């Protein structure tokens, strides 16, 4: 079984300002990008389940020129609030790495 992490060049998360989090799943090869998009591995329902957020609050785009899938959500806790454990938002992508990509 292939994972998203194996196919991607980079999976990262980051603040988009202090109030939003954004996730980039980037591919080197067109074929890997197309395969993940075709298999619909990352969609609002899957992402919403993992990050416990209703799909209507999720922005998800396929950026063909960048060969990237991008997801943005409002931060569950604002950056650097007392409860926030990740001021830069840089380590929130972990659960995406091992998502399984079916053979096509």
């Amino acid at each position, binding site marked *: 079984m292939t994972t998203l992490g194996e196919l991607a060049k980079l999976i990262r998360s*980051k*603040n*988009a*300002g*202090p*109030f*939003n989090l*954004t996730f*980039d799943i*980037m591919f*080197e090869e067109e074929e890997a990008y197309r395969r993940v998009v075709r298999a619909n591995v990352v969609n609002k329902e899957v992402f919403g389940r*993992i*990050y*416990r957020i209703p799909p209507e609050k999720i*922005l998800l*785009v396929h*950026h063909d*020129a*960048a*060969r*990237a899938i*991008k997801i*943005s959500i*409002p*931060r*569950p*806790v*604002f*950056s*650097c*609030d*007392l*409860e926030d*454990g*990740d*001021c*830069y938002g840089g*380590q*929130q992508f*972990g*659960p995406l790495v091992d998502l399984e990509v079916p053979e096509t």
Partner: protein
Amino acid sequence: MAEIRVLSPSGVLGSGFPEASFERGLSLRPHVIGCDAGSTDMGPASLGTGVPHFSREAAKRDLRLMLLGRECLGVPLIVGSCGTAGGDEGLGWMRDICLEVAKEEGLRFRLALVHSEQDKTYLKRRFREGRIRPLEPAPALDEGVIDRSAHIVGMMGDEPIAEALNEGAEVVLAGRASDTSIFACVPARLGADRGLAWHAAKILECGAACAVTRRRPDGVFAWIRDDHFVVEPLDPGMRCSPQSVASHTLYENADPFFITEPGGVLDTSGSTYAAESGRAVRVQGSAYRPAETYTVKLEGAELAGYQSVIIGGVRDPYMIRQLDTWLAGLRTDFDARVREILKDGDGPPKYTLVVRVYGRDGVMGPLEPLAHELPHEVGILFEVTAQDQKTARILASTLSHFAIHYPIPEWGGLISGLAYPFAPAELDKGPVYRFNMNHVVLPDNPCEMFPIETIEVGAR
């Protein structure tokens, strides 16, 4: 329109750049040198305290090279978001460094300081007029929030910078500025297509971050022409690819196709990216859509309290298996102990205790899907926040002793349940701040929130 050339020596002033790269950039005869010097990335501390993220020494080294380069070519130098947060303290800090370099190097120029720190009376008036609007998501805003903010800055567009240049400024040190306005200002003044100017600016503002692999903080150069722009990293050992440049609109943006600026939206949904050479990329098709309403984003920080923290580790399998029960009991009984030592009138003492369990869900907290998988060892971070440092310290020193001996049912007798790497176990962290607004102001004009101060540097 003639070709307009823009030099971005570094993604952020103070992080550095190789001199050889900068010299190459100067040899390409830019019409303007721009550099971003701030961000909200590092958190609210710079805005709250006024203390910049980078050291004075690092900022001075970078600014000296830029001032000398500017002098050599006779073109404007624009530095935005001075002192990290762009408040008056940060701007004053950068001004002093600038004046010091000018004196040491015998430079003469007209310097403009464009202030972005906001007057609370002005903001409260705009709030009462209904001309402050929330973005999504935003914390609640009222006049009390404005009053208790340590500092509030507005994020300027290119207009106040252009105003400074109109008044003859050769060096512009700006407070909080939209990263793109630093780089789009001069091309827009010289008649560049606004879509191309803003898209180029969006790529320029992070320096060599748009390269395939950025080996160290470095610079990038752009040529803006009639119907396209070309971008290339200054270090001959680095290259941009169509994908690396396209990817750059992803970085730190919520939406990669529609990027909101004070006066409009940069639309990159129709942009195309093609290799101009092995190292340079040509971009076409970007559009700038003016907004119906001009908006200035606010950034505010307020004191959240003073912190003391404790770091401890747990290896006892019995304790790890019931960690949440143990922590819940500890929290309740510690609170009772606090009431014995701190009297706050008739009410309970005010403090916040945040506990993070590293190895389990310290990074993602309640979002962690694997929190049920028990490791053999965890690290626990206790964060005590109170209204002053003395109280935070009293609470933390009480907690470190209370927690290490707090029992579990499996063991009889006194336990030592936490491994502390430090003695004393408590660390004082000082004041901590929080961002308290994600709102925009609707001003009467783009410049009213950003007063300009002019200094004739080196004048006799």
